[in-house]
């Protein structure tokens, strides 16, 4: 197993959105919340592709929920961040925080 799991930008956003939504984290609310945060439409398919990748990496886990007639009898799949996922988010934040420190203010002369 790899010692570090590096997260892509969208992967990090999806993980943070799952944490934000808590018990309501499934495909459509995730896509909707991401669209609000990013200010642009996010396709549900791209969210699921990322969720699939994160699940393979062991950063999230999923469980089946209820199936309703509106969904054509198909069950919802809820997602939650695993302990390993949470550690990956914190590690990424740590790295990004260090990098942000060297960000010059707008108008400041670039090195």
């Amino acid at each position, binding site marked *: 197993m*790899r010692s570090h799991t590096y997260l892509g930008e969208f992967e990090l956003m999806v993980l943070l959105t799952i944490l934000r939504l808590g018990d309501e984290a499934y495909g*459509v609310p995730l896509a909707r919340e991401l669209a609000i945060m990013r200010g642009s439409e996010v*396709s*549900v398919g791209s969210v*699921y592709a990322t969720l699939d990748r994160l699940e393979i990496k*062991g950063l999230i886990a999923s*469980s*089946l929920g209820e199936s309703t007639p509106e969904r*054509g009898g198909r069950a919802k799949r*809820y997602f939650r961040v695993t302990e390993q996922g949470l550690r990956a988010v914190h590690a990424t934040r740590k790295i990004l925080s260090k990098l942000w420190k060297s960000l010059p203010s707008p108008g400041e002369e670039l090195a």
Partner: protein
Amino acid sequence: MKPTGSVTLATWMLEHLTFGPHREALAGDLLEEFRRGRSASWYRREVASAIGIGVLTKFRHYGPHLIFSFAWSMLYPLWWLCIIKAPLTHTMLVLWTTTDWPLSTSLGVVGQIIPAIAFIWLGLFIYLTLRTERTHKPSALRLLASLSISLNVLLIATMGLWSHISPTGVHLSYIARENFSFHSHLIAISLPLALSLFSAISSALSPTQRRHHGTASTAG
């Protein structure tokens, strides 16, 4: 409830042209949104996007396996040349030509299959070593299963190849005994080798191994 007649074809495409374990959930989510008031054009756009992403993801996953398999199988003529020059091969050839049927046929088949299997398995281990940093290490059981699959694919694909070239006038026994090491046959055998190696790699590095699925609801 909003009728779904206008998106029947899109739903069918979503169910049959997308991959992955969350296909059902995705189909349910899109249907739920559509019935809550989203337009049919939004639904079709989402389906097209899901299919496109699915194809791209598959290609990104299997593309390197496929490229390596074909590139590796192209080296088979070189491998064959090394085997032909080996002293053990010379001994085997002498034994083969001096042995009566049916043992001679068995020796001939073994003499063709063992180098091919060794070549594929060497390719698999090289690829796994190169990819260890980027993928999970397969378990011993999975590795054994992938080796077994590669052997089966090799035998089936080779039989398919032989049955394909036999009607053109080249007889199986003729290839096996005298003409097998001709370049055209070595190149033709590269296809079963590539398929066999590809199946072994795909099986060994299957992404479903570490999935964390549950069946009990955690929400709602």
